[in-house]
């Protein structure tokens, strides 16, 4: 139920963003890009919800040089059993949220902040140069 609701929310946001970036007003296009990037952020976060034994976290302490079992670091990567994500040992059942996607989404949010700031300034300068925010007026260059 929860997942369905989440999927619908993401889908509606995608649709809404796509509708907005097809508008003719620059500001609406920019808002559309913002909505789209938030839809993508939600998509990334929703990727990290796991139940059962497929929990992509690392057991043990931070090792010296990555994937060496001798140093106490355990990267359980049971490719032979058809399990693709790094998993905790079998038998333990926990609901867990992947910490990596949260780091990814944080990066994505910061990047979309920077690009949105830049594109807003650009829109302001376009308004200064052309005296309009209508994209149909911006046709001095022909692809």
């Amino acid at each position, binding site marked *: 139920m929860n997942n369905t609701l989440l999927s619908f929310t993401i889908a509606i946001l995608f649709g809404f963003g796509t509708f907005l970036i097809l508008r003719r007003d620059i500001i609406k*296009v920019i808002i559309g890009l913002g909505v789209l*990037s938030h839809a993508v952020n939600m*998509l990334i976060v929703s*990727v990290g919800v796991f139940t059962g034994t497929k929990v992509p976290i690392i057991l043990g302490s931070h090792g*010296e040089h*990555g994937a060496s079992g001798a140093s106490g670091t355990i990267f359980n990567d049971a*490719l032979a059993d058809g399990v*693709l994500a790094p998993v905790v040992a079998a038998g333990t059942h926990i609901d867990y949220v992947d910490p990596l*996607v949260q780091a990814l989404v944080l990066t994505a949010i910061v990047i979309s902040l920077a690009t949105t700031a830049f594109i807003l300034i*650009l829109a302001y300068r376009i308004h200064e140069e052309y005296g309009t925010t209508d994209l149909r007026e911006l046709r001095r260059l022909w692809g």
Partner: protein
Amino acid sequence: MISLMDHIPILLIAIPILMAAIMIFLRSIPALQKALNVLVTFCMLVLSVILLEQVWTNGIIVYEVGEWGKYGIVLVADLLSAGMVLLTLFVSFLSLVYSLEYIEERSLNSSYHSLFNLLMAGLTGSFLTGDIFNLFVFFEILLLSSCALVVANEKGGVTKSSDKMEATFKYLVLSMLGSIVMLIAIASLYATVGTVNMADISVKVSAMGAAGTLPWHIYPIALLFIVVFGNKAALFPLHYWLPDVHPTAPSPISAMLSGVLIKVGVYGMLRVFFLMFTVTLPMFQKIIIPLSLATIIIGAISAVGQTDVKRLLAYSSVGQIGYIFLGLGMGSVYTVAASLVYLVNHAFAKSMLFLTSGGIIHHAHTRDMDKMGGMIKSSPLMGTMFLIGAMSIAGFPPMGGFIGKFLLFDAGINEGFYIPIAIALLFAVLTMFYMFRAWMKMFWGETRDTKKYGEYSSHALSPLLTMPIIILALGVIVFGVYAEPLIALAQATAAQIIDPQPYIDAVLTRVVR
């Protein structure tokens, strides 16, 4: 000193980011700013030569940032990465020297140097990283810095500010959509295989392919990646932003964009399809060959009708990127090697032509070729240089472009792709036509109507403008006359691309072959 040599991959990314910060603080002392930036960029060029030499002799270098193994960020320098970094820094260095004289003082002293450093960091980072999400981050760095550089003003101001705004808006919106698509692809990929490390993805996708449990949505993800990198590289249905953005940028930035930045898309395709999704290669070939042919055709036909010299060069870039993708699409060691040779030659010739077009604009105060003519008398140097570049792009024997085209067509015929090669050859003739038509319009014939358009500038070009062009021209000729080292390097690189096992071993188990 030994320890410094071990850290070259991270230094090549960290130094420009650090310099970007330092340059902001030094903006009240322009002379120091210029000298320091040129010096540091030259040091980075030297470092990248050392890196390529190390990779050539010792095999693939893997650098763990934060020592988290394949779960953290790894920087991987194989022959392709190291070679692309060297190419990037070479073109960057020359463009930087050129822009010292070419860019208007106010733009140059305030933020130009910082942004240029960030652009270099984005380029070297995206070539060196071994992590698909990190690739996205570096894409954004180079996108934002290149957007800000496109709107920098050149001296004389032949390009209107409003044109720059319009072109940048187009570029930025399309690239943001491209990044959104890339994030969707990465998220779906992560949900499927549980890792963002390229080598690890490769192992898992091949294991699933071998076991027959490959989920169908790997194919849509691969298609999304074609959209992302096709947008970066201006592949056919996504090419229309390029002829607006590249001509409106100031000439040294056009040289960077056309010479190096669109090759990031080619690099991404190589990594995604030849390393990560080897199972989808048959699908990739069926899509990429028609698209690359369409790119060649559109680029060549559109370039014929142009009267603006930089627009002509931009459309020519669209056409030439099609040839590079054609080599990738045919997908054997020989064809990939041929398209790498083509890539290097195009980077040299096209960045040289864009720098030359800056000199021509300086001389004639216009970008319109109809308002030029007979300039061979007043500006023989620019005429010679443009001719060398035009001959290389058109594929004439003593220049590097000939070697690239020859290898590509030979490789294609060896592989039995007769019809694509025939189409490519036909439009190579058209390339010859439009390049020489442009040269003749600008440099032969009568001098322009001086009453109507004014005199040509009698002001001689400074050596800061001419030296980078001459160095690149020498490169073009050397690659044409003595091409064996480049071809050998390209062959070794292509062998490494086609067989990704050494790359995977180097990243995952630290076995360096």
